């Protein structure tokens, strides 16, 4: 079971002063094993209910019921917890709080803002803290689009607030509410202040939604538009569709995180949800220090204003790691419902799987492959299937998408392990990172022979970028394939064993690999490559190949052709000034043709 039905429609935001309308249960701890705690005397508790454990009121969640025994995973360190300590069940599942103020936030796995977890100069994360997930004090300028007397239903637009410069935050009618607008309260309001009354019931901006439940949509749409990543190897050979999913498996040091961060920075999504799941603290710090200073070229606003960061570093509690993925996808769906294209990066889904494994092992469940629980595939499917391009609920008509990019850290770099294999069945793109390529410092180390994309996006590229996109793409893929086969011969017999024609194939392959597919994340000009530039570069390489072949037919010696100094110019394509690409391409193509014919 990956999801649970909400007990009540989780649509009504709590209004100020209103008591929580739930029955609570209280019991006693009887067993403690790391993050897994069991309690008795909780007869009304249901699966996935939130619990508060011990005198520090640590946050936990029910994961198993066994007779009188209620088994919970606790999202905080359980050191010091005693048998007999109190447990209070809240009677509600784990909720995300959704509303203005999410963007630019840095949250832990259960959506607690990290800025509120270390106060008074404390460097560490205190236990038992329970700050509101959304800031209750900040006021947002609500601009209604409905008027008194309008009839509205779920998903209809009520109004909006500017949330930073990048995104207009749209306030929608909550699920399950249909009626007539009886009052409108424009102007500054906190997330819990009523902004619109529907049939006399006040509706605030904040929504609560259970993490493990997918948000409803009107329709699912076919995936026809690519998410432009700015990475040449991905956009050209293995494009991912908006609403699709991709996995990035790779051993350590192959550049998963650098690639995920590049996608978070440069992909053309409206909103990015970045989940650092069981990864390094210093990497998150890098994001935190870098993103506010980087400007999103599409909006002119700092990248942080379109980004939500969810951080569960590898030394933070393991159970919250499991929740972090669901917090992330729920926030992503929330922005999708407003009509945005959202990209969710999960780095790394293996740590999430391992968190499942650790909890499962402490529950003494029967392990399947490699100690992972047998329901691993179900859980992964429940996550990846929340990606999609959709027709949103309500009016005005709008579409949105959630694209999932999940990094996978296979043990020993061996892709046959369960997380890689199960994810492979679910994801439409497989971007295999290769240790051998990373050792050659070929980055992004995406192996072009192993990776694949199942999304047919050629039509979009041919229409939007250039009609020769798909023929050239097929040419490049074939050339790389041929080169790969020839390299095997070379490694056995040496390059001299090849025919002249084959050595040209080799040289074209080299140009494609070194001058086109390689891309430096650390070079400002090269870090992101728009598809127009990519196509221009590809055309030059293609023409260079043709020029080499024709020189060979003219009887020029093969060593003179492959050693021609002008070919080194291909390596400078990535540094062409952005406003001068077409001229540069024409100029270089001409020079190559001239030099080849003068040999």
């Amino acid at each position, binding site marked *: 079971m990956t999801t649970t039905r909400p007990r009540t429609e989780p649509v009504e935001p709590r209004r100020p002063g209103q008591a929580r309308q739930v029955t609570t249960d209280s019991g006693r701890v009887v067993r403690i094993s790391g993050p897994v705690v069991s309690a008795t005397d909780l007869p009304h508790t249901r699966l996935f209910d939130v619990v508060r454990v011990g005198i520090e*009121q640590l946050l936990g969640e029910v994961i198993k019921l066994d007779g009188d025994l209620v088994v919970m995973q606790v999202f905080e360190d359980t050191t010091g917890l005693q048998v007999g300590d109190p447990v209070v069940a809240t009677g509600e599942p784990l909720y995300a709080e959704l509303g203005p103020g999410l963007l630019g936030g840095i949250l832990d796995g259960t959506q607690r803002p990290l800025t509120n977890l270390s106060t008074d100069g404390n460097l560490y994360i205190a236990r038992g803290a329970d700050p509101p997930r959304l800031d209750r004090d900040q006021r947002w300028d609500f601009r209604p689009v409905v008027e008194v007397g309008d009839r509205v239903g779920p998903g209809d637009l009520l109004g909006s607030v500017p949330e930073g410069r990048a995104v207009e935050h749209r306030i929608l009618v909550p699920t399950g509410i249909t009626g007539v607008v009886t009052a409108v309260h424009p102007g500054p309001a906190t997330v819990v202040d009523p902004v619109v009354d529907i049939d006399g019931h006040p509706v605030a901006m904040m929504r609560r939604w259970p993490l493990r439940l997918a948000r409803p949509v009107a329709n699912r749409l076919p995936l026809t538009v690519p998410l432009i990543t700015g990475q040449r190897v991905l956009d050209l050979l293995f494009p991912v569709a908006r609403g699709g999913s991709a996995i990035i498996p790779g051993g350590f040091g192959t550049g998963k995180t650098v690639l995920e961060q590049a996608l978070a920075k440069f992909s053309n999504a409206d909103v990015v949800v970045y989940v650092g799941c069981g990864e390094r603290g210093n990497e998150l710090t890098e994001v935190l220090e870098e993103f506010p200073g980087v400007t999103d070229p599409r909006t002119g606003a700092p990248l942080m204003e379109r980004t939500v960061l969810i951080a569960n570093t*590898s030394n933070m509690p393991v159970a919250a790691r499991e929740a972090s993925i669901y917090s992330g996808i729920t926030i992503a769906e929330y922005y999708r419902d407003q009509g945005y294209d959202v990209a969710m990066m999960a780095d790394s889904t293996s740590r999430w799987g391992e968190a499942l494994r650790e909890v499962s092992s402490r529950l003494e469940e029967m392990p399947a492959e490699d100690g992972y629980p047998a329901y691993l595939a179900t859980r992964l499917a429940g996550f990846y299937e929340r990606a999609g391009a959709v027709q949103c609920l309500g009016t005005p008509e709008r579409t949105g998408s959630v694209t999932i990019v999940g990094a996978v850290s296979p*043990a020993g770099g061996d892709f046959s392990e369960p997380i890689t294999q199960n994810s492979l069945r679910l994801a439409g793109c497989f971007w295999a990172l290769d240790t051998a390529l990373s050792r050659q410092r070929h980055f992004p180390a995406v192996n072009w022979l192993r990776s694949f994309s199942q999304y047919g996006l050629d039509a979009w590229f041919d229409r939007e970028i250039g009609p020769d996109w798909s023929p050239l793409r097929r040419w490049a893929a074939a050339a790389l394939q041929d080169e790969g086969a020839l390299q095997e011969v070379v490694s056995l017999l*040496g390059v001299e064993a090849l025919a002249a024609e084959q050595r040209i194939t080799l040289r074209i392959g080299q140009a494609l690999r070194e001058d086109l597919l390689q891309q430096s994340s650390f070079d400002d000009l090269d870090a992101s490559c728009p598809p127009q530039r990519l196509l221009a570069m590809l055309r030059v390489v293609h023409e260079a190949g043709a020029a080499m072949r024709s020189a060979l037919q003219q009887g020029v010696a093969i060593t003179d052709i492959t050693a021609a100094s002008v070919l080194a110019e291909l390596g400078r394509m990535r540094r062409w000034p952005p406003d001068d690409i077409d001229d540069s391409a024409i100029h270089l193509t001409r020079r190559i043709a001239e030099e080849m014919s003068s040999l």
Partner: protein
Amino acid sequence: MTTTGARVPFTVGHRTVTRVAGPLIIVDGMDGVGYGELVEIETGDGPVREGQVLELDRSLAVVQVFGGTAGIGRRETSVLTRGRAARTGVGTDYFGRVLDGAGRPRDNGPQPVPDDYRHVNGLPLNPITRAHPDQFIETGVSAIDGLTTLVRGQKLPIFSGAGLPANSLAARIAAQARVPGDDGEVVVIFAAMGVTRREAEFFRTEFLTGGAAARSVLLLNLADDPTIERLLTPRVALTMAEYLAFEQHRHVLVVMTDMTAYCEALREISAAREEMPGRRGYPGYMYTDLASLYERAGRVRGGAGSLTQLMILTMPDDDITHPIPDLTGYITEGQIVLSRELDRQGIQPPIDVLPSLSRLMNAGIGVGKTRDDHRGLADQLYACYARGREVRRLMSIVGESGLPTEDRCYLAFAAAFERTYLGQGPARRTLTETLDVGWQLLAPFPAAELKRVSAEQLAHYHHEASVTATDA
């Protein structure tokens, strides 16, 4: 019934040891003890032993015993709770001392007077309070400074094999590490787990003789000391280090050796608890456990101190995909890999730069930190050496005469690179010397071959030599 905020009254029950299995005992009647807390075990004769609660199930507690379970019986053994988790003293009074794996003096000196006590497990640093590590540390070793640069606050392991000189490399880095333009002393805390007496003697000599003694602490858990204390050793070391780095604003280098012995101790406890084994018998939570150690490295905002970790692990059978190096590599910010082949050729230190990596290198080098050409030169040396190694492999198949001239040039480069750049011997090189040696090695290549460096840097640093490949 609202019971929030109330703890069940403390009761001292009748405590019986119901089971003794390896390093674990199971005690009945353990009311009022917290998960992860320390207990004292008295057997009537011999010293009082300490233990830690690993699991609680109603009145039963699983306790791991530090100091071994020999002599513990089901009767005549009493278990007392202390009501707190394992702690260690922290402070500068420990400098120059040799401690055991649990932080007690083992050098016959007086009991140190700590500034304070801290829980050994620590708490996770809030990511928002971290500062990104970006200060270059000069180690004097070219392969590290030039190609896998270490920065303050980094965690960088040395992947070694049995018999390779990882310990002397670590000692050398600890002794030589300095930050150019910064006179701040580096405090070295050394945690040795499961080391032999011979190794222990080596570390004692390296760290506690000469000027370094005044700023070093040595924790020794010998190979024949109780295994379980090995789990405490790195935690005690890191707790002391965190105090010095984040509260006393000092630059601390923690050297931990050998993580393989640590992981084996972890496996031993896991097996004694009859847990479900993961890969090669290591427990499924080993990643989390290792992360709880390694992630304690870093820098914090507004603090002048830093905690840098250098950990040594022996790859069983030189296998880098073994769970210990594999999980370590996923947590740490790079790795330095030692090569048996280079060691056999007498190249010291025998660092294999191809699989070695420093993820934080870019943040610590370049204009204003090291030199403008550092990145480009490192990439270029790496690319040329990788190509040279590839050609060497090819040569073993087709013979040297079957190689084109260009390839022979790379072959000569690879040999020269190993001989001079890597094989610097005991001499210390400044960063400028390291960079200069790099450019000298690139001299035989025409500028057009050097694609990884910019045209300006080529013009400034590259002095093309009319040397041909034949002089190798």
